[in-house]
């Protein structure tokens, strides 16, 4: 295994809410090697953005990192203090935020917005700054004559490219991308992904790509991390996670993927994610899992299935047997077999 640039170690994060503390991240461990591309998938609300923001150290005021470490190049940013974390942002770990449309400040020229990111870390003369911005624009495929434009003068796709240019300004070893193309149409989306992938190979940064589009991750990432209800339920090399899934939720996500011309209808997973304030006592997926058993009311361990492949399920070693069943729509429609004994913890009737 390559040396990790980013290591998230048993991270627990809670949001203080009126109803109590929402356990938004529980026991999240993840290491990203230099130059590697890792995809994080999971339904809306499973904690993907929360995880990335925690890594950036830019969390909403009601969030607290309860335990765990976030190590960048060996330094734990959580305990190192805010100034160390601030320096690591952008120069070490940069991020392409979820909404390209609102992430740029509408009243500032984009050149100024890129320049201020650089100057927050390095003291460059003006002409070097401008030369770098021109270079960045060329890199992402936007006309460098437009560096002094305002955000509203760009189309959505171009703004996204500007954000990528901004993220790469200081050649960070790690790039986080939170649904970088959700607001864009499919064609632009593809162009941007191809550009991002080419840049990654050329510049050698590691990329952590967050999306709820499993297909995108299968195409673009070497490793997949599947999240459910604030926890990592499965992680491993793409081929193994897809070809030899160790968790029913991963199988469900794969079923839900639309496949052109394959003659298979996408199957969705009925039910909704667990309530994070009062999560079910055992497996967080138990309320929706067609393979749930009485023992699933106790927390499943993180089983090691391969060199770098883990899954958090009591029955992960039986998956080879269960997989054919999991491909059938009836299995999922049936839902959890013993709903009365398993407390889903979700709020009913909303």
């Amino acid at each position: 295994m390559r040396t990790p640039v980013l290591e998230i170690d048993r991270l627990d994060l809670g949001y203080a809410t009126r109803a109590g503390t929402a356990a938004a991240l529980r026991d999240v461990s993840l290491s990203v090697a230099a130059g590697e591309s890792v995809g994080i998938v999971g339904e809306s609300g499973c904690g993907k953005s929360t995880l990335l923001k925690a890594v950036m150290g830019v969390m909403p005021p009601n969030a607290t990192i309860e335990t765990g470490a976030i190590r960048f190049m060996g330094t734990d940013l959580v305990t190192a203090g805010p100034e160390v974390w601030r320096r690591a942002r952008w120069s070490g770990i940069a991020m392409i935020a979820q909404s390209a449309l609102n992430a740029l400040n509408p009243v500032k020229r984009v050149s100024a917005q890129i320049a201020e990111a650089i100057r927050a870390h390095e003291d460059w003369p003006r002409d070097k700054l401008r030369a770098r911005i021109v270079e960045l624009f060329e890199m992402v495929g936007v006309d460098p004559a437009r560096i002094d434009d305002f955000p509203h003068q760009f189309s959505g796709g171009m703004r996204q490219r500007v954000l990528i240019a901004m993220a790469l300004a200081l050649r960070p070893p790690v790039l986080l991308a939170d649904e970088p193309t959700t607001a864009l149409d499919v064609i632009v989306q593809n162009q941007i992904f191809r550009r991002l992938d080419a840049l990654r190979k050329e510049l050698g940064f590691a990329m952590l790509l967050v999306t709820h589009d499993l297909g995108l991750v299968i195409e673009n990432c070497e490793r997949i991390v599947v999240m459910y209800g604030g926890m990592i339920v499965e992680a491993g090399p793409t081929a193994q996670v897809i070809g030899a899934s160790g968790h029913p939720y991963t199988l469900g996500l794969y079923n839900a993927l639309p496949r052109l011309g394959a003659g298979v209808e996408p199957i969705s997973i009925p039910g909704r994610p667990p309530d994070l304030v009062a999560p079910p006592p055992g497996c967080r997926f138990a309320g929706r899992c067609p393979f749930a058993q009485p023992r699933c009311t106790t927390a499943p361990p993180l089983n090691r299935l391969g060199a770098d492949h883990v899954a958090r399920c009591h029955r992960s070693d039986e998956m080879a047997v269960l997989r054919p069943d999991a491909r059938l729509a009836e299995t999922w429609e049936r839902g959890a077999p013993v709903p009365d004994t398993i407390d889903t913890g979700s709020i009913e009737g909303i």
Partner: protein
Amino acid sequence: MGRFVLRRLLHMAITFFAMITLMFFLFRMLPGDPTATVISPALDADARAAMQARFGLDRPLIEQYFVYLASLARLDFGLSFRTSRPVWELIELRLVNTLLLILPSMIAAYVIGAIGGALMAWYRGGRAEGSLVLAATALQSAPVFWLGMLAILVFSIWLDWFPTGHIVTPGRFPEPSWRMYLTLDFLHHLALPFLVNTLYNLCFPLLLMRSTMLSTIGEDYVELARMKGLRERQVLYGHAMRNSLLPLATTLPMILGWSVAGSVVIETVFSWPGLGLLMIEGITRSDYPVVQGAFLLIAVLTILGTFVADLLYGLLDPRIVYR
């Protein structure tokens, strides 16, 4: 940008013209013969006719209107009924006095309001912030004359820190002159009305800035600014506060009108010899040319302020289209 300024100038000219016209006809429609305040109606008709001829009141209304326009262009506001001296002479220093009171207090109110409101939102949730919001809301709904009188009662009468009114100690300058502005005595007189006016004007920008900031803080670009590794100060001043200034600039023209109206009251309470007080004096003495002149200048100030505020907004927000 050049065309934008030209367009705004044109707008201003049209507003100005409409205002003058409206005022001219409004004042003509006032009941009663203006000469009646100078010459008793009981006097013979000949003397009144002569008087009317002297002020041009015997001409057709429309002709009077054009004569009025022509004289305005020469800064000729006519003669005061009471003193028979040119109105402009009376107005000139009054205008300066009003500007010296309004401008610094508007600027102070906006600067303190913007920074204070921004900081209140930035450090939201504290007990100090809560009581400040309460105080500002209460202050905003307090009538300004009451505020002025309260200030006089406390700081002039009880504590005896400041004079109760006037621009300099009465009798120090028998004839008003430019030299009086260079004295400490002037500043001493200015302090209390300035303070009351600033306090009165402060609440609106303070509360507006606070609420705008509260929503700006949650914007994605503020979060991105932080992710870029900017220092908190830079995020606060360079992004959150910078963008929250926009609503402050849009409401400036409205507040300007409001504040000018408020200053009439403040001038009256503090016997501050400005345009507002001049207007009130003119009204009580039925000295229409003086009232009209003061009224006109107050309107001009408001229109000019609106123009400046518009330009300012154009500078602050690149998204507005300069057409």
